[in-house]
């Protein structure tokens, strides 16, 4: 089967869906190929922009502060690259970067408005959200259901961590201990926390209950009321002003569930940042897919790009394998948003790393070739450390237009752009920058692809 599109996006996580939406909205016919579940769907569902730079222990108070540091320290970071362009002078670079990231954040907030993953937060500040292990982390945007309100602002706040019996994904007693020790060290409210368990038995099960099952259950009529009956007693017991739940408030109805529950128990309710499998990640994924479809984009799920057809300076077509067939997609421009190791965009064996669709040269965080590196030697002795594992910053290198580059630094193809975790030069786990880079690079790559297609059209 043959398909045609102005723009082909390979990869259906944050970067690919944002790029596809931006392109569709500009009037391009856009087709997106997705192999399987994205890393975005496994994320905490909060949108980090920049929390730290590697090795520095103090978090940035705002994305703007962080971006200024990135520009100064890491000129090849994807964030830095959004500021480069033919029409930008070097003095303007910082302003251009901040402007572009802010623009992307505003764009996302607006597009997620009214969806199941509607977000809150401002570009001008990082908030510190509580995780399911009781630690906190800086992030820029949070889904409405994750917002703890005035928890750390009012002196009389009392927080109740509430977990679900038979669901191992969250243990409220350990989280409560970690969090209160942290607050005591900082001498800030809340000065009192408690923990409790409650029961939700989707399908009558009393053990091995997953957060996804609970969220589906809470989407059903009447389930919030039953939950409120149990929580009310516990809220009263310790005089809680806020209740922290694992991220399970619902998939379709989470936002309404939050306000309903708050009304019934008389306390602010919010979801903690959680690990995969992630309900908020799933909500974000579904919302982004909805936004893309609404903009007119077309999505082929279960299709993996396996080869391509090249004409001189351009990629003319991509061959993809689906469950039943192989298809050929002829496209004028292509965005590679296949992710890193989880997404499958980058793979490696004991001999080195390779990009999996086009076999583009992979590079390390400082843009040396990583084609021949032994993965274990690009790692740090310490597993979890503020420098991170260098292997996790490898990917493809790009030019100022977000086009992957060859060994000589020139673009690999005129019409191929890349975005998201397939890019080299940043380590999202230590920077807390994953979805922010995916968003900004997806947004920028699409803008560049649009400009490219306009120029081509004028020439032709």
């Amino acid at each position: 089967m043959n398909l045609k599109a102005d723009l082909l996006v390979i990869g259906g996580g944050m970067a690919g869906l944002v790029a596809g939406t931006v392109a569709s909205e500009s009037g391009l016919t856009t087709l997106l190929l997705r192999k399987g579940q994205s890393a975005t769907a496994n994320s905490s569902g909060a949108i980090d922009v920049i929390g730290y730079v590697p090795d520095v222990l103090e978090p940035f108070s705002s994305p703007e502060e962080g971006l200024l540091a990135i520009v100064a320290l890491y000129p090849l970071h994807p964030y830095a690259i959004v500021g480069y362009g033919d029409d930008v002078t070097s003095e303007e670079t910082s302003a251009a970067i901040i402007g572009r990231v802010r623009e992307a954040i505003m764009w996302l907030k607006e597009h997620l408005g009214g969806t199941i993953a509607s977000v809150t937060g401002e570009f001008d500040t990082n908030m510190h959200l509580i995780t399911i292990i009781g630690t906190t982390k800086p992030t820029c945007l949070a889904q409405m259901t994750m917002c703890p309100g005035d928890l750390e602002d009012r002196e009389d706040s009392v927080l109740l961590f509430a977990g679900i019996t038979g669901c191992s994904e969250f243990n409220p007693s350990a989280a409560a201990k970690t969090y209160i020790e942290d607050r005591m060290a900082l001498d800030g409210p809340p000065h009192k926390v408690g923990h409790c368990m409650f029961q939700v038995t989707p399908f009558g099960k009393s053990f091995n209950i997953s957060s996804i099952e609970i969220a589906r259950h809470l989407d059903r009529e009447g389930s919030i009321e039953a939950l409120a009956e149990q929580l009310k007693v516990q809220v009263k017991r310790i005089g809680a002003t806020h209740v922290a739940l694992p991220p399970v408030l619902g998939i379709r109805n989470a936002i309404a569930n939050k306000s309903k529950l708050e009304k019934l128990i008389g306390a602010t309710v919010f979801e903690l940042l959680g690990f995969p499998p992630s309900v908020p990640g799933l909500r974000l994924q579904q919302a982004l897919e909805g936004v893309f479809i609404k903009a007119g984009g077309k999505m082929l799920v279960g299709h993996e790009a396996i080869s391509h057809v090249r004409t001189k300076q351009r990629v003319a077509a991509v061959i993809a394998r689906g469950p039943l067939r192989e298809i050929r997609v002829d496209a004028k421009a292509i965005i590679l948003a296949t992710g890193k190791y989880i997404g499958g965009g980058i793979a490696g064996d004991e001999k080195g790393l390779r990009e999996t669709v086009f076999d583009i040269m992979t590079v390390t965080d400082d843009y040396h070739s990583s084609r021949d590196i032994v993965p274990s030697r690009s790692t740090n002795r310490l597993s979890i450390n503020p420098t991170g594992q260098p292997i996790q910053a490898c990917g493809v290198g790009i030019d100022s237009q977000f086009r992957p580059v060859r060994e000589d630094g020139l673009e690999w193809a005129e019409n191929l752009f890349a975005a998201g975790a397939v890019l080299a030069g940043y380590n999202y786990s230590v920077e807390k920058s994953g979805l922010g880079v995916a968003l900004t690079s997806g947004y920028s790559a699409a803008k560049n692809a649009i400009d490219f297609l306009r120029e081509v059209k004028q020439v032709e």
Partner: protein
Amino acid sequence: MTDTQFDVVVIGGGSTGTAVARDCAMRGLRTLLLERDDIASATVGTCAGMISSGLKYSDEPDIMAMCSKEVVHFSHIARHIISKNPIIAPLLDLSDAASDSSYVDSYSAHAEERAVPSMLFLTPEASREIEPMLHPDVIASVYYEEFFIDPFRLCMLQALDAIKHGAKIRTYCEVIDFAINHNKELEGVVFYNRVSGCTEKVRTKFVINATGPWAHKVASAAGEKLDIRLNKGAHVILDRRVVNVGVTVKAIDGRWVYLFPHENTTLLGTTALDTWEDPDSLVASFDEIEYLLQSIETVLPSIREARIIRTMEGVRPLVPEWKKPEGMVTRGYQVIDHGANDGTKGLISFTGGKLVMCRHMAETVTDIVCKKLGKTATCTTHERPLPGNEVDIDIVGLSREYGIALHALERMRARRGADMMKVLELTREHPEWKTTVCTCEPVIEAEVRYTIREEYPQTLNDLRRRLRLGTGPCQGTSCTYKAAAILCEELNLGGDDFLVDILDFRAERWKGIRQSLRGEQLAQDELTQGMYACVGNLDQSDVDYDVKPWEEGC
């Protein structure tokens, strides 16, 4: 008599030390075992768990006979933690078969007592029927059967049995000095309690030094010189059972290496290199990993398609024979009675030995101690069952009765035999504890809680050794925080301790993952980083984390 006076102090909580403590306690000696880390945390924890018939040592017939006898004993006293290990040795050319065929006869001589068939030769067709991944050019293969024992559970059950017979077992207690009088007689042992930070002292006239590759260091604390030959070996671990049976093959240097389906994984081992490094900081090298992969690749060409989850490196404490390749060094053991050689009276050390001999080694040394103490009690360690071996367990019936997956129960039975009933009992009051904590192995919450209450773990790594928690394909990515929270609840730890336990566990897993990082494990590492660093923000945590020996330097 107080808690500070013992007939015998055993140093080392490996297979030998726990076996000695068990034997001494069963013969009525007041026994204390001191272990620097945890039970089975060093040498025995890095072995393949094979209780070998001694096939490789056909030029030491006495040792082969002893190995075979010990396998028979284990199959009586510990059948719940034993499994059959059928092996084929594929031959690619005739020289493989002709080089040394005496082992066929010596193996078969003892086959009957172990209830296994004599060694068989198989046709290429029959070989590939058993193991379809074999190279198409295989001309024949040799088939024989060995046994595995779970080395962690063996040590744990020996320790628990010792406790049952009155012994005291102290983990995280490192011996730092000996009290020796002017007649060169041992009077006591001084040790550092790593948990409390205090130094303690006990009185004893006999010390059994069962510290494996640290034996010479411990002996030197008593001013004794002990010769030992340290030899390191690496294993590569694959994410599942990729072969139906064990496969052995000769490596580039003519040594035998093996690929064994083992528990829920596959073990590829091993190397043998003399070493003078600190056993605490040793990790598998790139060369060792390639040596193993390239060797097994000659008969299983697709082996690199399998996912490597980690490596492990252990150190063999060999008898100090020089000018011999490792394979020619005796697999027997030595008991060094330092007092008999004009040294410290009452100090007895081991060198050499194999996992399969641990009970035998214990019997020998306990005989010596009993004789010196004038005790007449005889050894019964080969007759009396280890805990859990008493009756058969019908897991199919239990699966129906408790509503727990058969596979989970099968794994539980393999760890604790009849004692699994005590775990299941807990779920009557707490049905929610049927929840799976580690999905790879799998391990349910009730067993985690039971283990914390009954098997004295101090850390998450101790729990791993008792439960195989976090040892599967995901290497604890999804269970580290869950199990840490349960440990935190049961031991009433603080929030910082909870986070330290997570970091400790990740550090220990990473030690093995890092060396062989490649393929799908890159995605696993991205996920681990994404969870514990990106979301959990633990890379920025300011908790008091002690850097591990293998993490030091740069």
